[in-house]
């Protein structure tokens, strides 16, 4: 069973449907134990870093993510749900994140922001998440990102400058783009993840 963490963040309905196309059972939950014991946990996120982090804390999501990592249980962060996994975010002030990786989500230096639309990625060596969709485009909507490689496998993208598009690091993975909004390529990537559970 896959749990999508429901902490008041945006459009979860289409995320649920997208993950259901993998054939797995998918629940939306804010219950700590359900989320802890799920085969896979998805941490979505839209809006500003601080608001997202506050929502996460309200369901003890920070503790939940750390506990799942220590138990080596697969967890996937999406968009701002990826950014809050880092040590810090500097959107509207300096905010502490969950701290899985020591990096900061910073504003992209690009002529047009948000970075909105379909972009290709440079897939990190050994990636299983991108298997079969290495040359596809994915849907991004964000103005902030981490600008260095972290964890075991870093997949990078470019908008004005290079930034981290996805990370795979043991049981935890994250994408800056929205796989649930990335058409067939996104559904393929989701299936790669659910097949690994």
């Amino acid at each position: 069973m896959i749990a999508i963490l429901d902490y008041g963040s945006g459009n979860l309905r289409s995320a649920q449907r997208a993950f259901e196309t993998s054939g797995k059972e998918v629940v939306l939950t804010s219950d700590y134990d359900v989320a802890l014991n799920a085969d896979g946990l998805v941490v979505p996120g839209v809006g500003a870093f601080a608001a997202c982090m506050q929502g996460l804390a309200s369901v003890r999501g920070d503790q939940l993510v750390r506990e799942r990592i220590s138990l080596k249980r697969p967890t996937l962060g999406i968009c701002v749900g990826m950014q809050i996994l880092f040590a810090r975010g500097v959107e509207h002030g300096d905010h502490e994140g969950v701290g899985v990786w020591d990096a900061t989500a910073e504003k992209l230096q690009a002529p047009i922001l948000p970075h909105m639309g379909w972009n290709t990625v440079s897939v990190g060596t050994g990636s299983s998440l991108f298997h079969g969709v290495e040359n596809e485009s994915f849907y991004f909507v964000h103005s902030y990102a981490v600008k260095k490689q972290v964890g075991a496998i870093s997949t990078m993208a470019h908008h004005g400058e290079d930034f981290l598009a996805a990370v795979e690091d043991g049981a935890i993975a994250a994408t800056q783009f929205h796989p649930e909004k990335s058409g067939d390529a996104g559904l393929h990537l989701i299936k790669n993840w659910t097949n690994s559970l």
Partner: protein
Amino acid sequence: MSLSVRIIPCLDVTDGRVVKGVNFTDLVDAGDPVEMASLYGHEGADELTFLDISASVAGRETTLDVVRKTAEQVFIPLTVGGGIRSVDDVDRLLRAGADKVSINTAALSRPELIAEIADRFGSQVLVLSVDARRARTDSGFEVTTHGGRESAGVDALAWVEKACALGVGEILLNSMDADGTRAGYDIGMISAVRAVSKVPLIASGGAGTLEDFASALDAGADALLAASVFHFGIHRIGDVKKYLSGHNYSVRNAHTV
């Protein structure tokens, strides 16, 4: 690696049905917005836009249903506009499955609405729809209401700058002079708006030939919205992408997985 140009078909929906004739013979029900959305998704649309032109509360409720059903089947971004007057309206649409909303008249009458929506949901959900035409204002372009029939008494460039400062995440620029003519986008208007804004710009109104799409991109558009050329099958989305790709614009190839 580069960001692709987005091709966005727009469907006018009232009481749960697509209006403006749609000319696809391969559809079981050409008036069903969910089926249309699904077809465009398969043809390679990069996003979809629904414009709700329902006049009644019941009609708007039906639109929520359409949004729900579409979001369950079509896994590309969906923008919904029309009749949005409050933060609660936005909340309902996002919960139903919309990824973005576009606002127009309500923002003109009460610009603070832009900041209220951006603060609550983030700028990325908010598209400012600007119906503009050529006029004797400071910039030479003015904002209109009532489908281009009336002047809003506001200079278009000044309005775009103000809305960007208030927190819109994207601009949908619809030329009311070019709308429906298929005589080409208003290139001068696109360049003028591009020059005063740093958020993504969607050009709308006037798409006719394949060259028109390229011209709008050259003028600074990041995305291209069209209705009738797609609905009437004058161009398929794949044809537009093939043309643009052949002229060295970056497009997303759907259906290679």
